[in-house]
């Protein structure tokens, strides 16, 4: 039940950002569903993989793949989908708890939380980068083939 609620609110959150960024029509729907997929995949991976950062990385690779495909299908910049679909993965909770630990002066908890939050952010970014690199290599190869 809790998980269903999370997936629904992930969709809503992505939809909200889509509207703030002035995404329109079919693209708005595709972008918001990206948010839904990313959290659903994260939850599903939880059955096999315990480490959150590893899950973040895998989800990030898969969802940015979805973004690249959608961008090609709808002939629009990839940013449209990347900016909205990955929103639920932003470690806002981690940032907040890191802050409260810092304020209460609990240095051990602060370091622990801080490192965990940072590693999630880095895993997220690396996932996007991996997909970007793979896509650009694939596109170059395709162009090359067309020329020959």
């Amino acid at each position: 039940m809790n998980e269903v609620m999370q997936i629904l609110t992930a969709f809503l959150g992505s939809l909200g950002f889509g509207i703030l960024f002035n995404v329109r029509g079919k693209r708005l729907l595709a972008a918001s569903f990206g948010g839904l997929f990313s959290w659903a995949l994260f939850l599903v991976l939880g059955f096999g993989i315990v480490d959150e950062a590893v899950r973040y990385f895998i989800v990030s690779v898969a969802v940015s793949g979805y973004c690249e495909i959608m961008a090609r299908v709808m002939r629009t910049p990839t940013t449209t989908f990347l900016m909205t679909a990955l929103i639920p993965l932003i470690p806002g909770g981690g940032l907040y708890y890191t802050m409260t630990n810092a304020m209460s002066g609990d240095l051990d908890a602060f370091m622990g939380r801080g490192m965990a939050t940072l590693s999630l952010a880095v895993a997220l970014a690396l996932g996007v980068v991996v997909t970007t690199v793979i896509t650009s290599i694939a596109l170059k190869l395709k162009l090359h083939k067309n020329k020959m």
Partner: protein
Amino acid sequence: MKGNVLILFYITLNYGGIMKEILNTVCDIGEQMLRSGAEVHRVEDSVQRMCKAVGTLRADVFIITSSMIVTVYTEDEKAFTQTRRILSINTDIERLHRMNALCRRVCGGNMSLDEIRAEYNAIISAKGYPALLEYPVYGVIGGAFAIFFGGGFIEGLFAFVVGVVLRLVVALTDRATLGRVFSRFACSFAASLLAHLFFKMGLIPSVDHVIIGNIMVLIPGIGLTNAIRDLIVGDSIAGLLRAIEAVLIALAIAAGHFLFITLFRGIML
């Protein structure tokens, strides 16, 4: 025979004047793409292609998030340069989408300068979602993420209220043109204040989820992700600028909460 119509145009008429006009239009399109939130290397690539398509000999394009410099060299060995200062970036995906489509058509050739101008003006004057819609949308994002991070329905409701107020704070700081970092700082202070106020009044069981929900509203989107992406693709300057902005905003959010807690520790906690 790309851009043959344009070439004919500026060879038969006065060469320099038309070239300036063309460069101006190309820069306008690039500037709008950058302002609407396109990645730097995409805009560089687009401007380069457009310059090629309109028949210049060579084009040197240098773009960072806050400035663009474009120099084109024509076949009679003249050079024209334009620079643009980008003061603010206001993410507008619809405008980016249409500018990108326009750019593709320009690169395809067979578009006269007047046609490009007309399309450009049509895109600029197109209206976005109504501004008032942003108030409930801020609320919905705050509320949704309060529940997402483990809050109950009540907390979601109050996070919605806080989100709407945050949009008001953003409107006020925007009017005073105080910049994004300060705006985030003020918002974060307001969110902390309201959450603790509701908590004190006994309306919500804890402040945590209401604040987290609204941190998600304020956080610089995937600014850091974009920054790392730019860095790895090779746009070091653009990447560093973006990374610094993302980190500054995260610090501003933390500072807002710190300030509230230190000021009111005795009175409210």
